[in-house]
C-alpha cells in the first residue's frame, strides 16, 4: 500500500538555527507534495505545493527564502525551516498524491514536530 514517511519525528532546535525535514513516499510515485504546518492551537496551513516539472508554489505568508523545498524525484521531498523562531514551532506535515489533477487520495506522513527553545 501507499505510505509516506517523515523524519525526523521531533526536533528541538535553538532559536535562530535551522531544521531540515524529509518526506519519503513508498509504494507510489508522488507527483505532488504539499507541506503543511499546524501551529499550536491552530489548524493546518498550506506552506507550499510542489509538483514535479512545475515551479514550487508558496502560499501567502510563506516564502522560499524561509522554507526552501526540494522535490528531486517522485519519491522524495525535503523542506528546511531556516532561522527558526518561536512562531515557527508546530507540526509540519507532508502530504503526497499521485496525480496533481485527479481525485486521488492525499497520503500524509506522521509529521515532524519542531520545538524551538
Amino acid at each position, binding site marked *: 500500500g501507499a505510505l509516506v514517511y517523515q523524519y525526523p519525528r521531533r526536533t528541538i532546535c535553538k532559536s535562530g538555527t535551522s531544521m531540515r525535514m524529509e518526506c519519503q513516499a513508498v509504494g507510489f510515485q508522488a507527483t505532488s507534495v504539499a507541506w503543511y504546518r499546524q501551529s499550536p492551537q491552530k489548524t493546518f496551513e498550506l506552506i507550499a505545493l510542489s509538483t514535479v516539472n512545475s515551479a514550487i508554489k508558496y502560499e501567502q505568508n510563506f516564502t522560499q527564502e524561509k522554507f526552501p523545498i526540494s522535490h528531486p524525484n517522485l519519491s522524495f521531498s525535503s523542506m528546511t525551516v531556516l532561522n527558526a523562531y518561536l512562531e515557527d514551532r508546530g507540526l509540519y506535515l507532508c502530504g503526497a*498524491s499521485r496525480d496533481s489533477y485527479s*481525485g486521488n*487520495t492525499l497520503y500524509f506522513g506522521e509529521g515532524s514536530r519542531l520545538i524551538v527553545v
Partner: protein
Amino acid sequence: GQQVQQSPASLVLQEGENAELQCNFSSTATRLQWFYQRPGGSLVSLLSNPSGTKHTGRLTSTTVTKERRGSLHISSSQITDSGTYLCAMERGGGSAKLIFGEGTKLTVSS
C-alpha cells in the same frame, strides 16, 4: 475570513450516540475531505467526495457543493472515536492543495 468553518467546535457524547459534524466553506470547492487527527498529530484520511453521500463503516459523508456545505455522520459512537475531526476543501489544483477547518473535538464517554 475563515474559508472553512466547522461546527460544533467540540462535542461530548455518550457511547452509542450518533455524532453530526458540520462543515461550511466560503468559496468554490471541488471536493471535501474529512480527516481524523490522532493524539500525536498525524492525520488519517476518512472520506472524500465531491458531492453526494459516501459511506464507510459507521461514517457517512454528505457534501452539497452548490450550498457550500458538508457533514460527517458517525453512528453508534465509540470511546475510540474520540479525537479531532478536520474538514478540508480542495480548491482545485489537485488533491494535495487543501484548506482545513479548525476542527471538531469529539469526546465519547462510557
